[in-house]
């Protein structure tokens, strides 16, 4: 176990890499996922088709494949975001994680939208709100309440999926672990335990965050349940 204590900084840097990937991927997939859900319920057949094709494509492709595509093919297609190669790889990894995760977020939000009674949207249309405001002011705020628990599971999966980015030149927990294993061949088990514990701690923090959010929404809802 000494190896964990001696390498706390390596675990720390790895955990930080994971957190950064997770943070940007969460932000990106919530935004893109919501947008896709809006596409999927929009009155425009073209937008609905875009949403459906996107979801079916990315939800059914292995994340590793998307990651490899981003890292290997985007440079060939001359799609770059920055000069700095470290940041560039991180951007590719976040892009892959967002592309993949947002398809799940979209479906969770869409099923949340379906829990909102249709009369809510009709009343909103009847007072003259345009489609985008019907969604943003009336439907989505009510849908998000139903979506928090499944979203928690999706983000939990995303947290662990950030490990795929280690194969794309990103430094995060799994890369840190690999480095430590190479240097400490005699303490592999301890390194693995340390890595596991770190993931579990991060996941529990995420879980606590989801709980807080859920309770806040419930408090906000007060008497809104009959």
């Amino acid at each position: 176990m000494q190896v964990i204590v001696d390498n706390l900084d390596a675990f720390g840097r790895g955990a930080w890499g994971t957190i950064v990937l997770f943070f940007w991927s969460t932000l990106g997939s919530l935004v893109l996922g919501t947008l896709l859900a809006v596409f999927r319920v929009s009155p425009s057949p073209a937008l609905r088709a875009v949403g459906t094709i996107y979801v079916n494509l990315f939800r059914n492709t292995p994340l590793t494949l998307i990651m490899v595509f981003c890292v290997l093919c985007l440079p060939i297609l001359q799609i770059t975001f920055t000069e700095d190669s470290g940041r560039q790889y991180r951007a590719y990894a976040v892009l892959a994680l967002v592309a993949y995760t947002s398809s799940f977020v979209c479906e969770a939000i869409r099923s949340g939208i379906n829990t909102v009674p249709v009369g809510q949207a009709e009343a909103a249309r009847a007072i003259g709100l345009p489609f985008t405001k019907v969604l943003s002011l009336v439907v989505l705020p009510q849908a998000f309440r139903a979506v928090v628990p499944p979203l928690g599971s999706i983000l939990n999966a995303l947290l662990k999926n950030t490990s795929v980015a280690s194969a794309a030149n990103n430094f995060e927990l799994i890369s840190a672990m690999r480095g430590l294993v190479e240097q400490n061949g005699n303490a592999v088990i301890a390194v693995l335990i340390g890595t596991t514990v770190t993931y579990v701690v991060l996941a529990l923090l995420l879980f606590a965050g989801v709980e807080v959010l859920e309770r806040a929404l419930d408090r906000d809802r007060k008497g809104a349940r009959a």
Partner: protein
Amino acid sequence: MGNVRRPCTVRAMSDPVQAPHPGRTATRRPLVVLEGVQKHFGALHVLKSIDLTIAEGEVVVVIGPSGSGKSTLCRAINRLETIDGGRITIDGEELPAEGKDLARLRADVGMVFQSFNLFAHKTVRQNVTLGPVKVRGTSAAEAGRRADELLQRVGVASQASKYPAQLSGGQQQRVAIARALAMDPRVMLFDEPTSALDPEMINEVLDVMTGLARSGMTMVVVTHEMGFARRAADRVVFMAEGEVLEDAVPEKFFTDPEHPRAKDFLSKILTH
């Protein structure tokens, strides 16, 4: 219970009791005009070439058996339902297709639903201010003042900061009326506004509607409340199987309907 009738508040918005006079429609200009309106749901022909003109300030009660297309008619007027044929104009302006123009026109047509449909995540006051602020661009302060005034008028001012689920059905429906009024609509549509209410709450809603009718609001009201029709309506329109079969002043319709289906229908609901 919190659903005490407040006749004084209601009377404040109405003239002293006075029967609507049928002749008044002749002098007013047409506000809502339906010409040959057709609607199908798949193979089902729900509106069969409906012609109907509602003049400014007129109160029209629509009555008819379940499934005859009354709701569809209401929903077609503010285009919650598209139509397959014919024309619907509001103040001479044809209903636009989806988009900004349609939203603007819908703001001018108030709608009150059978199931209230108050925004569940917003307080009573927010329900009433949402439209004016987000559609009309009214300032929050001004919209709030107006909301308080309207909630006062429908007798639920004391409930302003509650959520819809904390209110009785009658109170919710009155809030829904205030929400529609906040947009300063040119016409109000009511689709069976008291059908989902417990009997003891029906009158508090009908009183508000009667006051509204007396104040000169143009109204289309789907209801089976005969008392309201006699008291407040200028005309009764009888629908069956997607057709308007009779269009008469209330007194004539209730005492001497011409169409056999109307007679049959009346005998059924009056013996209840």
